[in-house]
């Protein structure tokens, strides 16, 4: 039973007992030496020498207090005289205990250190066990996992930002394709990576200019995909409430481009830029309308003046 009390045998050694504290009230339910109740670790770990010399290793905190745990108290009586450094230990331990007052009418209770309020929860512990320090910079994750956007599009963007899409350069690196057919579908002859076809390709890249025109902003596109998403979605010239709209437009544009690219490769069907712009407008409209029931703009409004629909007054 006392083994289980320390959490022995469950997974990572010691994670359980390190996080369980005893909150001492009356002290009669707490082992003086082996429970973790004062100073962050059991006293037998903090003062191993004193524990070795202790007469009653199973004493409770209450018993120890009754015989006196101050300097010179009965708790420190040993079989032999203590050496000088052992005496120091006793002083340290007594100082640690000096501000503890036992309250008889309160029961001793267990506390779970990572979450003192709710106690042990499976979810909290899971997070505690898997926690790591790496985090995606600048809240990009909120911009990827928008609730207005379809989940498959979010997953697509997630892969795009990690450069994990089946683009030609990735397929060549994985030896699925041969080196010689690396030309871009758009028609230019440069190597075809994800950020190339989405932003810098002559044909597809110019869709972005149409988008900027449509929204009515001027935007200089940064080099990296993540920067592009971040700066477009948090466009400085526009108020904060438009940012979620802009992010949705960004998702729609990228998705339309990806579909168009696949269409050109697999089905050999090509749309021109005006059509693609229509797709973006329509798709972003549908996504926004599906989630924002309150907003009262029509497709016609959205088509012409997206900024007005977002609530910006010129």
């Amino acid at each position: 039973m006392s083994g289980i009390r320390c959490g022995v045998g469950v997974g990572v050694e010691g994670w359980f007992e390190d996080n369980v504290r005893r909150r001492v009230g009356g002290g009669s339910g707490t082992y003086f030496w082996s429970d973790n109740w004062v100073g962050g670790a059991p006293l037998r770990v903090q003062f191993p020498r004193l524990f070795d010399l202790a007469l009653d290793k199973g004493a409770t905190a209450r018993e120890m207090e009754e015989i006196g745990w101050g300097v010179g108290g009965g708790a420190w009586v040993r079989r032999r005289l203590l050496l000088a450094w052992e005496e120091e230990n006793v002083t340290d331990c007594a100082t640690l205990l000096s501000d503890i007052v036992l309250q008889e009418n309160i029961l001793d209770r267990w506390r779970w250190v990572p979450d003192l309020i709710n106690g042990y929860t499976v979810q909290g512990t899971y997070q505690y066990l898997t926690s790591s320090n790496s985090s995606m910079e600048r809240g990009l994750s909120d911009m990827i996992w928008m609730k207005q956007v379809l989940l498959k599009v979010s997953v697509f963007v997630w892969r795009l930002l990690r450069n994990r899409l089946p683009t030609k350069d990735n397929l060549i690196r994985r030896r699925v394709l041969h080196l010689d057919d690396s030309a871009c579908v758009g028609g230019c002859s440069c190597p075809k990576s994800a950020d190339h076809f989405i932003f810098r390709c002559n044909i597809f890249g110019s869709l972005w200019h149409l988008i900027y025109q449509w929204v009515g902003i001027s935007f200089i596109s940064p080099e990296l995909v993540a920067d592009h998403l971040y700066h477009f979605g948090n466009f400085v010239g526009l108020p904060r409430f438009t940012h979620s709209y802009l992010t949705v437009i960004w998702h729609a544009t990228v998705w339309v481009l990806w579909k168009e690219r696949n269409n050109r490769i697999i089905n050999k069907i090509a749309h021109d830029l005006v059509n693609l712009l229509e797709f973006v407008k329509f798709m972003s409209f549908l996504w926004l309308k599906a989630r924002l029931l309150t907003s009262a703009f029509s497709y016609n409004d959205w088509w012409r003046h997206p900024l007005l629909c977002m609530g910006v007054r010129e």
Partner: protein
Amino acid sequence: MYLFLLAAEGFNVLMSSLLEDGLFHGYQVWRGNDMCLSHLQFADDTLIIGDKSWSNVLSMRVVLMIFEQLSSLKVNFHKSLLTGVNVSESWLSESVLVLNCRVGAFPFVCLGLPIGGDPRKLDFWKPLLNSIHSRLSNWKRKLLSFGGRLILLKSVLSSLPVYFLSFFKAPTGIISSIESIFFKKYWGGGEDIRKIAWVDWNSVCLPKEEGGLGVRRLREFNVALLGKWCWRMLVDKEGLWYRVLKARYGEVGGG
């Protein structure tokens, strides 16, 4: 449902009165204290535990018949099992004739969990693996988008093993084979079809804020679920399971 619970409560009362009158002897957890288990009920699952004796078999038979008469519910004797621990085969087969049921063997399934099996053996986890496989027929792989597969993975597949994992510590091999099924399925592969896994599993398992997809890692989840029992051992002193453990293994002060 509630009506059923009322009837089941009647069974509880019958058993308790039998115990009081000494007509049925429950399983004594430990010699020297009076912690005694006779029956466990959950909805329509009932487990009766007792010493090996003819009087116990007869009282069981009687109690079940009285219960049938009282509640006009039918006990399905063909689905009932009589399982013996350190009881000879011949004795079991004789008492099975009296009770009109079948002889069971360990491990048997109670409330969906195999009782008496060894969770360190791979066979123990077979039913779990089968149920995961059966959820993943081929059409799902072909017809679902990435988003759909993510939902399938996170809400259906990861929840399937939770019940098992909250009771047993899974061996490393089982955890990695379950995760590899998930991993292959997520990227659109199957048992014999290989697909490119574009992002490694560790990154997929990171929470969304850290740039992953927020899929659960089974090992840590297993540990967290089991830790709950350790915590309840410290806090929940009233529970039946705690009292049984205490009677069996004793308690070392404190607590």
